[in-house]
């Protein structure tokens, strides 16, 4: 009886703890990445973004992706890869008009991906 109660309590605490940690970790990581992408967006809009700015964002994303892959399906993160790499490519050749929509897409995904895995009824059903 005591053993059963203890196991229920411990397993619930672990489940609850992991859930809270996951939500916070994913939200915080994407919030940080969004800030970086926003600054790249502003620079691209002002046509002052450089290839170094792009690679810095790409490195940041690669670093964050390693830990995000523990919590999110890899396929959800691959789309960010694709759009971000294209945007950096356009910035490299100073094609800011083509880079801007790609950065917008990345910003949209930074909102949508964490939301897709947060605790909402539409995500459960």
């Amino acid at each position, binding site marked *: 009886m005591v053993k059963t109660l203890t196991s229920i309590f411990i397993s619930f605490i672990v489940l609850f703890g992991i*859930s809270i940690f996951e939500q916070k970790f994913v939200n915080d990581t994407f919030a940080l990445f969004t800030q970086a992408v926003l600054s790249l967006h502003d620079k691209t809009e002002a046509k002052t973004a450089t290839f170094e700015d792009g690679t810095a964002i790409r490195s940041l994303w690669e670093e964050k992706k390693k830990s995000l892959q523990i919590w999110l399906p890899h396929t959800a993160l691959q789309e960010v890869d694709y759009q971000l790499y294209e945007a950096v490519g356009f910035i490299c050749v100073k094609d800011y008009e083509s880079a801007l929509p790609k950065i917008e897409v990345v910003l949209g995904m930074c909102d949508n991906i964490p939301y897709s895995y947060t*605790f909402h009824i539409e995500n459960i059903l």
Partner: protein
Amino acid sequence: MAIIFVRTVVIFITVLIVMRLMGKRQIGEMQPYELVITLVISELACIPMGDPSIPLVYGLMAILTIYFLHQAICLIDLKWNAGKKLVSGSPNIVINKNGIDDAELKKNNLDVSDLIESLRIEGYFSLDAVDYALYESEGTFSALPKPDYENLQNSLPIIIIDEGQFDEKNVALTKRDKAYYLDILKGQGCDELKNVLVLTVDGNGKVYLQQKGKKYVVLNLQWEESLW
């Protein structure tokens, strides 16, 4: 992860309800919730194992949720009788002193031939050889035989009428025709075939007849020779 937790709980409860609704036919030697765990846990373990794009933690989380539910149900089983009945069900007495309880059989999606098969597996070949028979909550079958049950099953009984329908092949085996059995039914005050739950006859002419909603009767047809 909270999504995985809630989804696992929802799927678990849904499968458990479906298993309970399917009756005892679907389970064997496991409580319904144990069967659900067996069904669900293998899938939960396999999906992240076979698909590297799904984080392993998804599978671990779901398996831990199943463990949590298992422990919670064990606690309910131990401490709350009504809860135990709800989750695991209760034994169903399908044969009593009046004979077969058709309603109890139907509740578990079983019919008379399933019952006869269960009796045979337990070593009771004649329906009148047992006083009580029941399906346990985990789907196993138990029977309480009559003290002299071995003397009641000298020959293998076969089904002649099963829930209002003649078994033509078995009728032919007895070297009699349907009219012969219809006369027997009339003699017992049964005018309509559809009112017969079961009629079996053994090689010596011993008949077990039960009409729906009535107590069974055992008749001896005094055949000249043993047929099998």
